[in-house]
């Protein structure tokens, strides 16, 4: 990814502290002037009232943060699939969102055909493996050494194909995830916090736990196994990995299969919260701002970025959304990422890319 610009900004304000201080000072001055001139209470509504609400009703704040955390886990899981593939093959896999839908649909579809739930999970894993092999054979291998944008477009092709294929096989109607059959808990836990009642869905807690477990397992896999070492080698340099005898084709199958497993787990978690439908395609685009926050190559970055975006989005929607008529959730994440980009283009944990002439 040598084409991401990280050209240093003009070094007038080289010290980040000075820069930050100046920005804060400017905001404070602007606010001070604004409050004087403010007649219609707009500034009050934007800068003071939401925080007052937060302090006055901390239970609502906790509830909102929790909701954000939960949707953040979903974003993080999708972003994780992106990062896995990006690290190993340099492909920006747009199809990750649709792979989630496809995995969930296959699972539910198999169960509806009468396959026992856990057998269905295993068969779905088999399907994801077949998908990984097919993608490697049909798409990646002939496109070796093409520019990034071409590979990116190829994953668009995969997306379209999977949408059509999934709808033709399983129909376009939203389906119910088989959460009970997989022994996922349901119902809610009510907690007495800060003088209010905070209700946590059990499935959300399970989702957070399973996601953490999976991330730990992935980290261990990357760190301690032979294949994991090979994966890291490929991520560092394709050429060097090839020269020490690592089979790129094999690694790509493994990586896409791993992304498929992540997609299946994401699909189960997400399907248990709402229903299984193609609407996730749009949600999957939220993984992009998450990746920008976390950096394209960092697994912890994907997690932290996902949580920040999730929480930021829910807080924004709940406290500031009503000021502009609501529904700002659809674009707030992108603006958060955009603001972030201006200050730290390589993301929180990403590699700093130096561009050469």
């Amino acid at each position, binding site marked *: 990814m040598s084409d991401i610009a990280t050209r240093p900004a003009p070094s007038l304000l080289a010290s980040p502290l000075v820069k930050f201080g100046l920005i804060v000072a400017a905001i404070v001055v602007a606010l001070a002037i604004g409050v004087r001139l403010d007649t219609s209470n707009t500034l009050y509504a934007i800068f003071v009232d939401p925080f007052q609400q937060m302090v006055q009703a901390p239970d609502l704040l906790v509830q909102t943060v929790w909701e954000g955390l939960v949707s953040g886990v979903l974003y993080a899981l999708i972003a994780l699939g992106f990062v896995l593939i990006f690290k190993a093959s340099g492909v920006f896999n747009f199809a990750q969102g649709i792979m989630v839908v496809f995995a969930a649909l296959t699972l539910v579809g198999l169960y509806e055909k009468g396959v026992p739930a856990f057998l269905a999970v295993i068969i779905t894993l088999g399907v994801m493996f077949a998908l990984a092999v097919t993608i490697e054979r049909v798409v990646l291998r002939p496109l070796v050494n093409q520019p990034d944008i071409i590979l990116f477009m190829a994953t*668009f*092709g995969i997306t379209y194909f999977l949408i059509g294929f999934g709808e033709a096989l399983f129909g376009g109607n939203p389906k119910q995830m088989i959460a009970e059959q997989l022994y996922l808990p349901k119902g809610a836990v009510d907690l007495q916090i800060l003088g209010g009642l905070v209700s946590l869905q059990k499935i959300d807690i399970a989702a957070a736990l399973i996601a953490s477990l999976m991330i730990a397992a992935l980290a261990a896999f990357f760190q301690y196994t032979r294949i994991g070492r090979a994966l890291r080698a490929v991520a560092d340099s394709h050429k060097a990995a090839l020269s020490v005898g690592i089979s790129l084709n094999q690694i790509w199958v493994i990586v896409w299969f791993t992304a498929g497993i992540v997609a299946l787990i994401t699909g189960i978690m997400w399907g248990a919260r709402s229903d299984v439908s193609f609407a996730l395609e749009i949600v999957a685009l939220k993984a992009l701002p998450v990746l920008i926050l976390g950096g394209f190559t960092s697994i912890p970055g994907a997690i932290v970025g996902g949580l920040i975006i999730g929480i930021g989005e829910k807080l924004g929607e709940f406290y500031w959304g009503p000021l502009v008529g609501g529904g700002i959730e659809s674009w707030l994440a992108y603006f958060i990422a955009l603001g972030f980009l201006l200050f730290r283009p390589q993301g929180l944990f990403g590699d700093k890319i130096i561009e050469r002439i």
Partner: protein
Amino acid sequence: MLYREAGQYKSSYASDMAVFPLKEDRIGIAVILAIALVAVPFLGSDFFIASVMIPFLIFSLAAIGLNILTGYTGLISLGTAAFMGVGAYSCYKLTTLFPGVNIIVLILLSGLFSAGIGVLFGLPSLRIKGFYLAVATLAAQFFLQWAFVRVPWLFNYNASGAIEVPQRTLFDIPLTGAAATPETRYFVCLGLVVVLTWFASNIVHGKLGRSWMAVRDMDIAAELMGIKLLNAKLMAFAVSSYFCGVAGAMMIFLWYGGGEAADVFSIRLSFNILFMVIIGGLGSLIGSFFGAAFLSILPTALKFGLPALGIPIQGAAAEHVTFMLVGALIITFLIVEPHGLARLWQIGKQKLRTWPFPY
């Protein structure tokens, strides 16, 4: 045999640098224009004109717009549909505010608003590139789409929340609204597309276009050569959004004739236009036409062509097959010819030039 440059001498700089240096090419363009102007409206059915030719022309214009940004300047945009939407809504506001002004003038003017918004959202491109810029333009896409729904001023506080296209006439011939015939709308589209393509061709072959290509190929080197990145990139955004905005206004006023505009300008449309540009060929005007023809006609052709061939397929199934086929074709094209249909066209011309003795 028929198509070769032997005997065609260039005696001036202008003729050497001509866009169509060969006489055969000029004849070809004339024939295509004649077909578009005479054969299509007189021989084509209303259905063919209204649901094949008009969408094709409008998508071509939008694809040219995006191609200026992505193909010529190398900046990826996923917000094309939103910029088209800006064009559509500003045309609607303009025509309700100034009902006396001719609608064609207003369609051309509405592109300017789109250009302004495009420049605004193009500002981050000065610091970021590639996928990062794609996210910035996604911000534009989702924010503007949100604004189209949530800002009632944009659709004149209609109860339906949609653009209602009023009837506008030129010399007492209705151009827009329910009374306009497909032929009239087709002629308006054709005229606008031809004129704007001519403009685009002049821009990309001129100083501005060259500076864009220099920025695309290596921005630091371009900067060293004295090209101002700020101006070049923002001009690319402005011109690209102008074309997209005009295409969007045409889309609502000359093709859909109203309806849920906020749904029309969704992320799906942005992707579709990006596909058109990629499949047609990055950095090629004729490629934009090829790509638009391929992707806008293919679904219609599949929908009506497969039953005609005796393959029983309809409704939902046809849509699924279309999706699968489009996906498979995108991948096939990328593998066979990553430089798009425009490159195939060039190869074909080269083959034709040496035919029948290729060695």
